[in-house]
């Protein structure tokens, strides 16, 4: 039987991780509570898979894996590993991890794609904390070859070996870091984006100017605000709140300008507009 990956949550990250796995020949079961979201996800996954092919980011001679979509978490039983990619709210992650942990066989790796909630906090939701690990994929995960792997204090050696095997299969390279709110990438990037948004909100500079300076002077590939639009501004705000609460640092609270954009439905590329305007959403 071909090993199957289960992905929980058919949002930007869930569909991107699904496209990554399919492109490397792994069949995927994509789970979401909303059938309409799943239907849109099929088209989104197809577009992202083609995007990966366009950029030469899929291995040659490997037939794409088969996609199955379902509203039933129970269909995750029997999979190689389960990736949790639901909304960045601790209660939602707790609920889905609790449910899936009771359904899969011991030794099935449970991966959270959280961008900021500590793995050991999520470990309280699962029956076997040693099976749980964090893999922080970046968007678009089918193009970015590096991932941040977060080993919780209770993550087992066997889980880490399985993670390495999975990442090899997916053609990704992982950097393993210790558990902490926001790990390394979000802890560094998110406050920078928050400050960049604050500068735009204060009228110090336009989004284009902020990004041009960070790219032209400091070597950032696209600038923090284009990156923010790629991540999704709602997710950024949620992640900043999660870090702020856990670090006890109000500096991480999302600034007014960021919250205003979220409130106006300007969520970044996925909604067609954020700090910038977009056509033909690609994520």
């Amino acid at each position, binding site marked *: 039987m071909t090993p199957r990956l289960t992905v929980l949550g058919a949002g930007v990250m869930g569909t991107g991780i699904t496209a990554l796995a399919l492109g490397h020949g792994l069949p995927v079961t994509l789970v979401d509570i909303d059938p309409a979201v799943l239907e849109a996800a099929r088209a989104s996954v197809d*577009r992202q898979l*083609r*995007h990966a*092919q*366009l*950029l*030469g980011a899929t291995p040659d001679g490997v037939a794409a894996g088969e996609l199955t979509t379902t509203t039933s978490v129970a269909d995750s039983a029997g999979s190689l590993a389960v990736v949790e990619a639901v909304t960045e709210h601790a209660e939602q992650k707790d609920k889905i991890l609790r449910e899936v942990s009771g359904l899969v066989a011991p030794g099935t790796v449970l991966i959270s794609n959280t961008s900021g909630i500590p793995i050991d906090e999520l470990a309280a939701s699962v029956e076997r904390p040693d099976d749980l690990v964090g893999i922080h994929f970046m968007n*678009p995960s089918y*193009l970015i070859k590096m991932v941040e792997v977060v080993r919780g204090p209770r993550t087992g050696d066997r889980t880490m070996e399985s993670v390495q095997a999975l990442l090899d299969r997916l053609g990704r390279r992982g950097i393993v870091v210790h558990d902490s709110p926001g790990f390394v990438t979000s802890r560094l990037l998110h406050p920078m984006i928050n400050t960049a948004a604050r500068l735009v909100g204060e009228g110090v500079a336009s989004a284009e100017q902020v990004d041009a300076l960070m790219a032209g002077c400091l070597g950032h590939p*696209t600038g923090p605000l284009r990156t923010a639009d*790629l991540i999704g501004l709602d997710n950024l705000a949620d992640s900043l709140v999660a870090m702020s609460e856990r670090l006890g640092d109000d500096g991480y609270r999302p600034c007014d300008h960021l919250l205003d954009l979220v409130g106006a439905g300007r969520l970044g*590329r996925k909604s067609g507009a954020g700090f910038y305007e*977009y*056509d*033909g959403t*690609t994520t």
Partner: protein
Amino acid sequence: MTTDNVIDRDPVDSDVVAGKITAYLEAKAKAPVAHDEDLADSGLLTSMVAMEIVVFLESTFGIAVVGGDLKMRNFRTVDDMVALVARLRGDGENAGDA
């Protein structure tokens, strides 16, 4: 490079296609775009914009870009894209192959 026979077969249509593609790209670049300009060299053809262009071509010209046609070399210049559109439109029975 655009081959002469593609242009010659239907010059009016190719001009229309080129015009629509150029207008789309110029709105994105906020600058004039020449038909033979290498869009990767000029910085417009980023990894994210490349797929936006594919989606634009598909929805505007009723084509499906799949399989071996999903290569960056088909999108380097306006001329490249005009040639791709002409080929996929003229090659009806294969255009929808997934």
